[in-house]
């Protein structure tokens, strides 16, 4: 194992995986469309998207279960595009875990080592070592059907790690676990990854999972990668409506650019005719059709107008009480609603607003993100 590489900045590390224009078609449908991607050594990288977005096909091409129609797959600098799965230095944790039901836990973990012809004593040591790593040292002689779901998941992990792969692939590894266990396992996985330093590539449809665990996330849709970045970046600065909508809740207001000043711009909103302030790194010019994205928790609500430059007025039409916070649905024009999240900080607090209250909404100009429509 390469040892912890966490302190080294991401960009300086060697590439563990490079995909160049990888395309995979099934009949007429293009599952993965000319994807380019570089994953750095020691990174915990997530492929995030709804089912059918191509994330699993992409993972299977890295593992060798699918061969790209075009493009190249390089693992650790070696072109493995056409190499069969059994010749690739990667291992996979399957969604179903795929534990061999006719073998014990130890036999499952030893399976990959046996294929390499490792000496028996060394093999036994390695099996014990990885089982200890996932805290299942005493379970070696059990069979998979005598384990709980969480234990099976860890056996699958141990089996895939036993060969010390260059990259560990995880296909929805937590999908079969219940919510509480899933949250705990997320942290365990991250800790494990930090300890052993292996590159992890994770496929998931659960954005919370991707946000919690990953160094970087690639958001996929329709066979394309829409955006790649650290969790914070894709949440705060999405580059498209789809990404904004997919990760977290987003208010999307359409309008046209009224004036530009450096990074910030004034947008005339289609719904209200009023103005809103927001920022963007993309060069804009007056008259461009754009969308302003504001996260619900970034919006302040007041009973009276504050006179801020980007202020919207509206009426509370729905309240969703979620415990830790409440979501207020404010109608700002016919058929146009804005969600506002307000934390419920104190027990005793009365709800600040109720149905049909008139409210004024505003946000810091830097919290509004301009997306090209």
């Amino acid at each position, binding site marked *: 194992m390469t040892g912890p590489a966490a302190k080294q900045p991401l960009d300086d590390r060697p590439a563990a995986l490079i995909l160049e224009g990888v395309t995979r078609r099934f009949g007429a449908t293009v599952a993965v469309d000319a994807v380019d991607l570089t994953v750095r050594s020691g990174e915990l990288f997530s492929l995030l998207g709804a089912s059918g977005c191509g994330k699993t096909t992409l993972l299977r091409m890295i593992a060798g*279960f*699918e*061969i790209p129609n075009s493009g190249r797959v390089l693992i650790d600098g070696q072109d493995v595009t056409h190499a*069969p*799965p059994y010749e690739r230095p990667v291992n996979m944790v399957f969604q179903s875990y795929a534990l061999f039901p006719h073998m014990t836990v130890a036999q499952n973990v030893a399976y990959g080592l046996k294929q390499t012809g490792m000496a028996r004593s060394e093999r036994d040591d390695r099996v014990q070592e990885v089982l200890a790593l996932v805290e299942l040292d005493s379970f070696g002689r059990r069979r998979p059907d005598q384990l709980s779901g969480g234990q099976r998941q860890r056996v699958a992990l141990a089996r895939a790690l036993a060969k010390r792969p260059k990259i560990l692939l995880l296909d929805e590894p937590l999908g079969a676990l219940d919510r509480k266990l899933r949250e705990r396992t997320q942290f365990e996985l991250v800790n494990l990854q930090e300890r052993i330093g292996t590159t992890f590539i994770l496929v998931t449809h659960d954005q919370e999972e991707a946000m919690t665990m990953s160094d970087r996330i690639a958001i996929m849709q329709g066979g394309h990668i829409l955006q790649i970045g650290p969790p914070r970046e894709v949440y705060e600065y999405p580059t498209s409506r789809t990404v904004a909508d997919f990760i977290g809740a987003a208010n999307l207001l359409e309008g046209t650019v009224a004036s530009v000043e450096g990074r910030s711009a004034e947008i005339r909103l289609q719904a209200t005719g009023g103005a809103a302030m927001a920022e963007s790194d993309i060069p804009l010019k007056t008259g461009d059709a754009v969308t302003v994205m504001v996260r619900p928790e970034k919006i302040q609500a007041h009973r009276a107008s504050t006179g801020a430059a980007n202020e919207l007025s509206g009426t509370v039409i729905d309240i969703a009480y979620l415990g830790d916070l409440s979501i207020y649905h404010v109608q700002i024009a016919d058929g146009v609603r804005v969600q506002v999240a307000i934390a419920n900080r104190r027990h005793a607090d009365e709800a600040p607003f109720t149905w049909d209250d008139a409210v004024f909404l505003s946000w810091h100009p830097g919290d509004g993100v301009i997306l090209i429509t």
Partner: protein
Amino acid sequence: MRARTSIASGLGRRLVVGTPFFWLVVFFLAPFAIVFGISLSRSRFGVPPYEPLWQNGALAARLDNYAFLLDDPLYLTALLNSLEIAALSAAICLVLGYPIALGVARAPKSWRAPLLLAVILPFWTSFLIRVYAWTGLLKKEGLINDALIWLGLAAEPIQMLQTDFAVHLGIVYSYLPFMVLPLYASLERQDMSLLEAASDLGARPWRAFLTITLPLSLPGALAGFLLVFIPAVGEFVIPELLGDAGTAMIGKVLWTEFFNNRDWPLAAALAITVLTLIVAPLAWLEHLRLKRSEASQ
């Protein structure tokens, strides 16, 4: 372009497909070409008992045998008779098998496997001997006639052996497990909460059965019907042992043509006719059914 890396590739793959493929082409497909060829030749005394198709460098194919099949009403009657007997027997199997399948499917869970095993078990004993068992029961001085007379239900022994009734009975008896199995599978799979929902919505048990259980079990019923009908159409042993000399079923007619009359070309022509008129449509039907059940899974 290969779709995905399969568990086998290259040479291994070719061997896996090629071995059974070769065997089936040689021993299953080719014979039908030969049967077709011989069906066009003329029977003769000798070994083999048919004239070669190539005579003096010319093709000596003739359709005489087919013309003969059309000409003599025996063959058409036998064909229709076989269809009728098979269909009626399959229908009786359905009526008898349904309550059994339903009973087993609704029995306590731990009982189901042994009960089902008991339905299948007779299949593993000899088919021939099971049919033979009925000859002892059905004949004039047999057990059933004895019982009927003892009960006063009949004044004198009834002729049951060597009738169409016995043929139907034999088919129903032999193939009943084939009906119960698919019916059981489709009934057992049914979600019991559907019946609870029906009853919650005001349906009485009988009505719930008619509107929920029965329609949902139709695929199983169709599968069972075909599983009985298909082997019954070409049946030989049952009409031979239980029917009378006049029971014309196509399997028996073909046997007689071949073994008793030693008319190989005519038997071959009959086989080709049955193949195109009955087997091909049935195979197609079965293919469609399997495809549909695959798609629904």
